[in-house]
């Protein structure tokens, strides 16, 4: 194998599994260390810089970082990365005056954002901070998008949204409330230098089945119903509720129903339990609150007495493989099931809809109904129009919307300066030794064996009384510190210098995970099998050195390294060093700001 080029910004970044997996590349271990040090303000600001909504995401993020966490590969559970964000957000002091303000020098450029969800708010934060005049339009009276309209208050209280939407706009973006954009052409005519479309995926899919029209009064589209609850228009639901669908929207619908008078609430899903789209923890929480989840049932018809819904008929199915080995749901032939209920919530998916974008506006759409955009710049076929969030790639989540927002802001900035948005500014990396003494490091390298801590919840009896009672209490101080200590500091990298190595084997012998081997060089596949512990996880890199004195190479499997620093502590020559890797992503305006 070729010796590893550790100067490539991706190499060590990939070793920080969580940061690599986070769409906004939040420096996770760095903020967790701050929490462990009691520096919640610092932890919050690091998050805020990357992901804009630490308090919101610390309660609601889809957390793609957690399945990536190295601790999860050690026959253990990942660090509670997400809920530690909330720890910082809840405990921080007033940080408002540490946030960037709109510069007094304006650059004279105007940007219009359509929709005030996380994508638009990120664009507004990034661009207003460097002198753009940004106006954010939304049909709703308050900013926040689906964070405000969809996510139930018991998971995300309004105060948290108010605070963080406020911070996002505090760099100078202007929110234009209750103003639905009805025409892109009209918007273009207003002379914006660039337009960002962050209108989300606002249409809930319906279920067309016999009885749908007759029983319409008691059949609700999940996301419309949740919005109506959020905005205080709906206060109750029938005692027996059937929720159709197996995603996170279904979980929010059933849990909200329990709080609005539902006492027999069932989620009925076509697929098996494991195949459901909802996150494992959402399913757990719903079941803990008393929701029943029924699987392998396909809705066939709504039953009703005149215009009053009486129930839903389901066909029983089972998972099978078809001739080509694909999973299909085949009817079992057993009699249909009738589930009686008073209300049905349909949560079977979301769609994009752009009725206000004229077909001759210059913005092209693909067959899937999504805009044709450059996947890196988010620029549409009409160069001054950019997309991001659910509007760009279909329904995803908040952190993805934020990541799109950052990229689109960079593109808009380049575009407004007459540059090619496809030329992306490079990230800046740094690698700093953490050595303080013979066996002293400027990070806590001790490895705790604590298991993942569970976040305490309000008791069901109390939680279910009010839809606005936040159900999670957040970690206690002790839990927060202990959970923070579970982080392995994967950003503190093992860096090897072949010329310094005397091949004493001390690092090989001490490494608790058998990561390090000195072996003859070979092609990757062969090398992976020749190591002290075979490197079977192909998604993780092998760090290969230049030849050492005996002509062998040092090969380190990055997969399970605890970043404990013992290799560096036991190395007599300093051939191993523990160095903190930081990667700073460009934000709009960070390069060539002076030319603005």
């Amino acid at each position, binding site marked *: 194998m070729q010796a590893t080029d550790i100067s490539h910004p991706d190499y060590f970044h990939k070793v920080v599994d969580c940061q690599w997996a986070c769409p906004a590349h939040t420096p996770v271990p760095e903020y967790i260390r701050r929490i462990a040090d009691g520096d919640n303000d610092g932890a919050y600001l690091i998050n805020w810089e990357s992901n804009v909504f630490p308090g919101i995401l610390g309660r609601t993020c889809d957390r793609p970082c957690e399945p990536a966490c190295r601790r999860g590969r050690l026959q253990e559970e990942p660090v509670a990365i997400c809920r530690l964000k909330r720890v910082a957000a809840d405990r921080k002091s007033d940080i408002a005056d540490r946030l960037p303000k709109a510069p007094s020098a304006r650059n004279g450029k105007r940007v219009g954002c359509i929709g005030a969800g996380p994508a638009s708010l990120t664009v507004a934060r990034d661009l207003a901070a460097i002198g753009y005049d940004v106006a954010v339009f939304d049909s709703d009276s308050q900013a926040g998008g689906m964070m405000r309209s969809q996510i139930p208050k018991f998971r995300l209280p309004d105060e948290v949204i108010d605070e963080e939407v406020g911070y996002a706009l505090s760099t100078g973006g202007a929110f234009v409330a209750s103003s639905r954009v009805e025409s892109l052409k009209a918007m273009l005519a207003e002379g914006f230098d660039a337009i960002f479309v962050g209108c989300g995926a606002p249409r809930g899919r319906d279920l067309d089945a016999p009885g749908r029209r007759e029983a319409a009064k008691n059949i609700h589209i999940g996301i419309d119903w949740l919005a109506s609850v959020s905005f205080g228009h709906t206060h109750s639901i029938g005692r027996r509720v059937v929720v159709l669908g197996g995603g996170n929207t279904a979980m929010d619908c059933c849990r909200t129903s329990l709080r609005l008078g539902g006492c027999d609430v069932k989620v009925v899903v076509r697929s098996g339990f494991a195949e459901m789209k909802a996150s494992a923890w959402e399913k757990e929480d719903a079941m803990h609150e008393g929701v029943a989840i029924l699987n392998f049932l396909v809705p066939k018809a709504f039953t009703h007495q005149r215009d009053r819904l009486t129930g839903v008929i389901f066909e029983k199915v089972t998972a099978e493989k078809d001739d080509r080995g694909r999973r299909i749901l085949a009817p079992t032939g057993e009699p249909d099931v009738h589930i009686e209920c008073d209300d049905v919530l349909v949560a079977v998916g979301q769609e994009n809809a752009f009725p206000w974008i004229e077909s001759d506006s210059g913005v092209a759409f693909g067959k899937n109904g999504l805009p044709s955009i450059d996947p890196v710049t988010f620029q549409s076929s009409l160069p001054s129009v950019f997309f991001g969030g659910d509007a760009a790639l279909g329904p995803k989540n908040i952190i993805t919307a934020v990541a799109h927002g950052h990229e689109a802001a960079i593109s808009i900035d380049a575009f407004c300066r007459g540059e090619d948005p496809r030329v992306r500014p490079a990230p800046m990396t740094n690698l700093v030794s953490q050595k303080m003494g013979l066996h002293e490091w400027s990070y806590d390298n001790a490895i705790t064996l604590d298991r993942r801590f569970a976040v305490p919840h309000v008791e069901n009896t109390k939680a279910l009384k009010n839809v606005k009672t936040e159900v999670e209490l957040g970690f206690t101080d002790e839990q927060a510190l202990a959970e923070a200590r579970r982080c392995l500091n994967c950003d503190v990298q093992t860096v090897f210098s072949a010329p310094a190595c005397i*091949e004493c084997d001390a690092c090989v012998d001490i490494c608790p995970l058998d990561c390090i081997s000195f072996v003859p060089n070979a092609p990757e596949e062969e090398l992976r099998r020749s190591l002290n512990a075979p490197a079977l996880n192909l998604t993780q890199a092998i760090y290969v050195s230049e030849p050492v004195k005996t002509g062998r190479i040092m090969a380190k499997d990055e997969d399970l390294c605890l970043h404990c620093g013992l290799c560096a502590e036991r190395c007599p020559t300093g051939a191993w060093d523990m160095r903190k890797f930081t990667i700073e992503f460009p934000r709009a305006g960070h390069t060539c700001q002076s030319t603005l």
Partner: protein
Amino acid sequence: MSYLAKPKFQHPSLEVNALGFTHRDYEGSMSTLCAGCGHDSISAAIVRACFELSLPPHRIAKLSGIGCSSKTPTYMLGQSHGFNSVHGRMPSVLTGANLANRDLIYLGVSGDGDTASIGLGQFAHAMRRGVNMVYIVENNGVYGLTKGQFSATADRGSKSKKGVDATDEPIDLVALAIQLGASFVARSFSGDKAQLVPLIKAAFEHRGAAFIDVISPCVTFNNHAGSTKSFDYVREHNIAVNALDVITGRSTIEVDYAEGDRQDVLMHDGSTIRLHKLEAGLDVSDRSAAFGMLERHRFAGEIATGLVYLNEGARELHESLDTTHRPLNELGQEVLCPGSKALQAINASLR
């Protein structure tokens, strides 16, 4: 030294041996030796050998004297019996333990000072009596623990860290062990686990006094230019005379050497040592050939490593003394201490 305990986490796909243990189960507590000390590598090699042989940790007794080397039993085999004796006295304490309980597996760990200086007499008698044990000397040519004075194995002309030459004739413990009657004698290098681990395994399989002299650089006091026990010097002058595979019931032979270059030795417990002769014609069962080979390499300024001498038919101490086959702790009070009448009978028979 490191203050951190080695984390309990281990690789999920670690191999397990016949007892269901991983090599981590044979580790001891955290080493307090200097980072990079050759002795730590030898500990790791012993751990590996015990793991691969599936030795039950609770049936091993590890004994040592005084020195950095003699501290190492603490850093391996945490589930085994241990005894840290007086400087140079490991052989007699081990002999006593062995006589009392012949069922344990005995591992003596010593240093060149502990064995070739203060303990030379003890070493000599354990070898000539054929005590059934594995005797490992971690040989760095200095007294590491007392800050680097030359030991009796320092080569004449080797330079101390301050630049002073060693003036006395060195003791070659390998030659001495053969001369004294050890029945398994080998030399190796802490920096070559591929050679060392099979040697340790073979030594455990051998019945009788098995001696291994392992050159083990002292990174703090004897790893400089001019030293003949430094990593660089040993690597440059190391000549392996053979390589071996230990074939127990479970393991298979991986490399097949041509007939003539191969020597198979059946061990008393049924396993086989397969030797691949790197030095043509060297027969490890030939004592005088062993001396000749050692002398030849010494004269050429080379360090001969590998299995140097093996006599699988040798008598061990218990056979010579015709002792009881059972450990003393399994015999009842009446058998161990038959009373004054029995004593009188013995005395009478000797009158």
